[in-house]
Each structure stands twice: as C-alpha cells, then as structure tokens.
C-alpha cells in the first residue's frame, strides 16, 4: 500500500499541501487531530486526551497500565501500531506523528518535509491569525521546539536530519500548486520504482529483486526482451499466469490448453508472442482463435515476429517516440 508522510514546519503551508494532495490522489489523510478524535479515545480518558493535546511528553506514558508488563505500550507506540495496521489496507497520507520514522524503511513510503524561511512563516501567521511580528516569531519558536522534541523523545531522531526525507520543499517562491505538482510527479515516478530510504536495506532489496529477475525462467529469449520493453513503459505484467482449456475428450479431460505468455494487469490483456518458426505460429494462431471463440470476454493480442522485431529495433535505435 502507498504511504506518503509529510512533516512540516509550522506555517509553512504543509497542512494545506497534505489536504490537497490527499484529495487529488485519493489517499486517506491521517493527522494528529484525526488520531485524537478517532484512535486515542479507545485508550485514553478525558484528562489524558487533554494532556495528549497539550504535551509531547505525555505520548511516552503507558496507554494500557492494566495490561501485563510485557504487553504495556506507550501512547506513541499505540499510534505507531494503529498506523501500521491502517497502512496494510489503505493508501495513506500521514501528516506529522513521526510517520517518517515509523515508515522509514517501508518500500512503498515516500517522505516529504515542507519548510519555509522564518520571514515567510511569520508573514503567514501575521496574515492568517493577525499576530504581531514578535508574537508570530515566538509562536514559531515554540512550535518548532515542540516538533523537534516529539521526534527526539519518541524516536530519538533529529527532526532536522535531511536524510529522513526523500525530498524537502522550501515554500519560499513555490506556490501551493507548484509544490503539489512537484510532489505528485515524484509520487508518480516512485509508484513504479519504490525504494526505502535506508540505503543498506535498499541495497539488499535491490540485490534480491535482481536475483529474482535473473532467476525467472522465460521460455524464450524474446519473452525476456518483451518483459524488458514492458518494464520500460511501466506496464505491470505477469508471466504465464493462466491456462485456458481449449479441447476436452469425451470424459471431460482437457486435451488441449493454452497459456498466453503475458498478462498485462492494468490493461486486462493477455499477450502471446509468436516469434518462432512459421510451423509454430500457425499452431499458436489456431489456439488463439479457439481461445477467442471459447472465451470471448478475454482480451488477447498476438505479437508477431515482425512486430516484435520492430519493437526491439525501436528501443535499440530510436528515442522516445512511437
């Protein structure tokens, strides 16, 4: 499942970005107020909820003191557990909550930080809340300290550490729309090519992935090449996932079946490569015709030798045009 985390400096406009981004990408937005309203009342009483609203320190308190010692967890751990569970079934956009740490090594997580200069943020507070410049500066100082402390207390991480984030965005000179556009682009790119932040883990994951690809046994070299062309275009595929029975003997035993080479999941299309000798091509054509007769709802395409050669040549010789 896709996870986007956004950390933000107060008055950098991070909330607005999170809200817009969650709407545009259809992600469930989870922020502190959501957690206070929907999750924490399950474990906290009224006084505790009030304290959780006010103090970062309170998140290190035990949420279930009645439980056995080894099963006791803090409010912060409770939130982390809930977030992880939620992320199993939903695409999430999480604002704050230390989510950049909780999902630090998650392969499908992208971490953004939104910052802005003090001047930008002061102006924003002056404009939105009618604060005087000095009051605004003081508010920012307190809010920044609160953010820093939360991450340090709960996760022992420095909030300012740049490598906690895939991207840090400075709002000075970037409009809301521009900021969203940048983030959406990166989200779009990473969808096909996810990678966790932890470099050590990533190397291992990459090595494993390469191993898997190398070990994958294709029936024919052309199939391997075709898989590369699909990968090149970010088209998701499965290799020979289904077999379709085509002929049965009088006892109902399948005597002829057909297993197309590829299934393009997003396009609900099967693809059969016929790059072999003519004899085999005729046989395959017959099978495809039968398949279309018996299973008219199945979309199957044949890539002939000539088409395949054109494709292969195009990607060796040519640029990005069709």
């Amino acid at each position: 499942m896709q996870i986007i985390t956004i950390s933000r400096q107060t008055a950098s406009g991070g909330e607005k970005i999170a809200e817009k981004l969650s709407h545009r990408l259809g992600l469930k937005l989870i922020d502190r107020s959501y957690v206070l309203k929907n999750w924490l009342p399950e474990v906290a009483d009224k006084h505790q909820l009030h304290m959780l609203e006010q103090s970062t320190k309170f998140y290190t308190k035990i949420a279930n003191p009645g439980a056995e010692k080894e099963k006791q967890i803090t409010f912060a751990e409770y939130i982390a557990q809930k977030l992880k569970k939620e992320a199993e079934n939903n695409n999430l956009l999480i604002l704050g909550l230390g989510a950049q740490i909780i999902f630090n090594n998650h392969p499908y997580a992208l971490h953004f930080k939104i910052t802005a200069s003090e001047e930008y943020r002061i102006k924003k507070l002056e404009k939105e809340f009618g604060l005087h410049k000095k009051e605004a500066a003081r508010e920012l100082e307190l809010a920044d300290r609160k953010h820093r402390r939360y991450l340090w207390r709960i996760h022992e991480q420095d909030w300012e550490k740049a490598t906690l984030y895939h991207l840090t965005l400075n709002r000075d000179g970037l409009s809301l729309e521009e900021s969203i556009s940048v983030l959406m682009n990166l989200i779009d790119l990473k969808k096909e090519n996810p990678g966790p932040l932890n470099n050590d883990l990533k190397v291992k994951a990459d090595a494993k992935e390469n191993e898997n690809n190398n070990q994958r046994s294709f029936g024919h070299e052309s199939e391997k090449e075709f898989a590369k062309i699909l990968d090149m275009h970010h088209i998701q595929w499965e290799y020979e996932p289904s077999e379709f029975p085509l002929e049965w003997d009088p006892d109902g035993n399948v005597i002829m079946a057909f297993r197309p080479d590829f299934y393009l999941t997003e396009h609900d299309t099967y693809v059969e490569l016929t790059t072999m000798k003519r004899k085999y091509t005729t046989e395959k054509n017959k099978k495809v015709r039968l398949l279309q007769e018996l299973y008219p709802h199945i979309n199957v395409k044949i890539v002939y030798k000539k088409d395949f050669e054109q494709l292969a040549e195009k990607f060796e010789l040519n640029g990005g045009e069709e």
Partner: protein
Amino acid sequence: METDNLGKVIISEKEIAARIDELAAQLNQDFKDQEVILVSILKSSLYFMTDLSRKLKFPLKLDFLELNHYADQDNSGVIRVTRDLEFSIAGRDVLIIENIIRTGLTHSYLLKNLGARNPKSISICTLLHISDNKLLDLPVHYTGFEIEDNFVVGYGLDYQEKYRNLPYIALYEENPQQ
C-alpha cells in the same frame, strides 16, 4: 535531402492539410468555449501541432512534453519525461497531440503520467493511427488517418532524425534496391 530510402508517398501535403481542417472543425465544436491545454509530444508532433493549433478557435495554451527511453547497462531501461510540461494541468482539459500511435505502449505511459496530475479531462488527437495489431487498446478520441502497419517518415516522423521536415508522409524502405 537524402531521399534514397523513401518509398511511396502515402499521404500528400494536400491530404494532410484537408484532414487537419476537418479535425480542427470537429475539435472547435467539441471544445467550444473551453480553455484547453494542448500538449504536443516532441519531436514528432511538432508540425501537426503548429498546423492544427492555428485552426483552433477555442482559448488554448500550448505546451510540450518530450519522452525518451533510457537504456541501462543491461540494455533494459525506462521511459522518462525528458522535457516536462510548463503548465500545471490539474483541473484542466488537456488535449494530447500525437503524430502516430503504433503499439499503445508510449500512449499508456503518457496517460498514466498525465493522469496522475489530475487533469479535468485528457483527450488524444493523433494524426496517424495503426489499429492493426495494436498491443494496447486505449481510447483515441481524434484520428487523422488510419494507416497500415508500415514504417513511415515525414511530417515530423523520422528515421534516425532524418526526413522529419518532409511535407508529406511516405513509406521508409530499408532496402529499396531489393
């Protein structure tokens, strides 16, 4: 210009101009009073974009997108945007101007990439369309000419960067003597 490998002209300059007039008339009707961002896919659709856009009467912005296939060491690679749009297309009507749709592979990537930016609508207008044996069936809203599955050049289409500036579309023959 080198014309050794040029085969038969399959669509003349005159035919292109006439068809563009028809396409423009249809687009003018469909997009009447809407503001549209025209996205030209570089480089092949350059001439089609300039000729078509000058016949359009609705308010529009011109933008350009260039894609390229990057090869990795092991000869695999990915398609990437090498020149991105100038404008944000979020909430906007977008008309993609393509010169040719052959397999649907690039087309599929384009729709995925631009779709992620949440435009109000995306329509595709292609001058040439090869429907025979197309790998992916994706919606193409406006088509200039349906052609057979041959290698063609001219009017923006190239063979190794040559022949783009031909005013017509011709077959490219690899071994013309044979």
